[in-house]
């Protein structure tokens, strides 16, 4: 059942559940952060509206820097602003930033300990019809490998706003990952966003498997959990909204209850959430794991749901993975 302590949206499984994008939450969070602190500035590389920076740009034209199609320059200009006391947010598609400009991000922002917030949009295959060139499916891996960086992946628009506001208050480099497609609004006004904490969204007294999901995949993991419940298979679904630093202690505690794990991310299965969980469990509690995500391939154009089905990342694939990992546990 949904964890009552987190004030989640009771209508999440209804057909009329509110759907919204995380990029909208980013735009609202950026505007609110900008109103609260005059040192917040925003930089865009010719994708102002689709990354939802336009409201900030309109409200604070003197604190908005249009860099043109130049993501390396955007990142390093932001570093210069940050070491001068500003709190820059740089926004683009994640394939370009922190993809194309990764070394610039590494040197001038992360190693340089510049207080820059990197907003990576259009993450995952659910970016859809634009095709694989614009679907960021390696960004978690390339950012997670960097020391000294915080990584948030919000699961819905409310959490996206909260993560953006939190990022603004952290003194240091932060990567926040957003999606283009709408997803169910699972959290409510009272749902806490605590950086660094794994939250159990769907709980069970005696779970036989633990699903760790991040971002867009949290909703699909909940859908799978509900289907499993109807088959009398009790699992827990955990929202890993902070990938780095990872809540290792809580992850190990949760896994000790179930003894089997499925990870769900709209990203390559290498180096992302699944990799992070596997590293943690290999150190502290070796456990069978199945990995939902892109299996060492690029995706293609299509509608988000079509892509999730074709690339075995939808609720049915998650359900099958849970059954598979349970079987591995007992074999």
């Amino acid at each position, binding site marked *: 059942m949904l964890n009552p302590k987190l004030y989640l949206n009771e209508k999440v499984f209804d057909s009329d559940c509110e759907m919204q994008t995380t990029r909208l939450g980013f735009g609202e969070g950026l505007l609110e952060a900008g109103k609260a602190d005059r040192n917040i500035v925003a930089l865009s590389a010719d994708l102002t509206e689709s990354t939802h920076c336009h409201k900030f740009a309109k409200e604070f034209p003197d604190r908005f820097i249009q860099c043109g199609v130049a993501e390396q*320059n955007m990142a390093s*200009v*932001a*570093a*210069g602003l940050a070491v001068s006391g500003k709190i820059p947010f740089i926004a683009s598609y994640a394939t370009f930033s922190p993809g194309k400009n990764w070394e610039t991000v590494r040197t*001038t922002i992360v190693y*340089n*300990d510049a207080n820059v917030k990197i907003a990576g949009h259009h993450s995952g295959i659910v970016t859809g019809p634009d095709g694989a060139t614009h679907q960021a499916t390696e960004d978690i891996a390339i950012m997670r490998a960097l020391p000294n960086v915080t990584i948030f992946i919000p699961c819905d628009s409310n959490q996206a706003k909260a993560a953006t506001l939190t990022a603004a208050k952290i003194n240091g480099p932060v990567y926040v990952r957003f999606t283009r497609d709408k997803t169910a609004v699972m959290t409510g006004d009272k749902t806490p966003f605590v950086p660094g904490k794994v939250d159990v969204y769907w709980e069970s007294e005696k779970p036989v498997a633990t699903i760790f999901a991040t971002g867009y995949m949290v909703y699909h993991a909940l859908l799978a959990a509900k289907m499993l419940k109807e088959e009398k298979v009790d699992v827990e679904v955990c929202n890993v909204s902070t990938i780095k630093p990872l809540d290792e202690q809580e992850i190990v505690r949760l896994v000790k209850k179930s003894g089997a794990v499925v990870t769900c991310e709209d990203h390559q299965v290498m180096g992302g959430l699944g990799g992070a969980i596997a590293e943690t469990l290999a150190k502290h509690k070796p456990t069978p794991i199945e990995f939902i995500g892109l299996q060492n391939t690029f995706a293609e154009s299509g509608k988000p749901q079509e892509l999730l089905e074709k690339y075995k990342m939808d609720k049915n694939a998650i359900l099958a993975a849970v059954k598979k990992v349970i079987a591995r546990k007992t074999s």
Partner: protein
Amino acid sequence: MTDLTEDKIRELERKANKIRQLIIEMLAEAKSGHSAGPLGMADIFSAFYFHILKHDPKKPNDDSRDRLVLSNGHICPVRYAAMALAGYFPEKELMTLRKIDSRLQGHPHRSALPGVETTSGPLGEGLSQSIGMAIAAKMDGKAHRIYCVASDGEHQEGNTWEALMLAPKYKLDNLTLVLDRNNIQIDGDTENVMPLEPMADKYRAFGWETIEVDGHNMRAFVDAISQAQATHDKPTAIVAHIIPGKGVSYMENNYLWHGNPPGIADVAGAPPKDEQVKVALSDLKKIEEEVG
């Protein structure tokens, strides 16, 4: 800036020569690092630290300081030597260059050493960071200036041109770019590796106030800085023509000394490796006597 008297010019030249000697000693001790680039820029770094910059070595993070960003981080021995002479840290610390537990990283790191302004080394990123600093100063109505030293080789990086487009758009007249035009890079002469000329025309076409100077002529360089300070509504680029390896006879204008320290390898046209450090210091001592 104060007036540049003839006495002051001689003082700056003496300091430049001392910087060059320290560069040779540091590199010899480190047995690793770049020689020709730092030696070439010693005059300009002397001019910056002992005449142009508003700075206080005892308060390296003072908000009102002028910023000097070194984009081509590999020539950092010249910056470290100038900073030590200016009093940022003891001269003997120069001998820790590139060694374990040192603040003097092989390429400068902001968190390691106060006063280096930013981390650099990967090419083509310093001008962008300088632009960020210049925009921040404009936003906050601050009067300090931002100077960026960049190499010619790093104009082969796309990011440099992205930055060259942005600075005129925002009319950053508090930003001055000093091009270390020494015509060499690791693989050879720049015009053989990847032709860059006409550099000055390119800056003009991008909307920069552009000045060409002999980078070893103190008065010409300081005058160019004065002109940059008097320019409004656009950034200034100073193309400083530099002799790489300046002051060490066997290194001058030889690209083979771009990435080599003295005393490690036998190089065509140079003394045997065991004598390279001695000859370099002897060359510089002779110049010191001439300057007086």
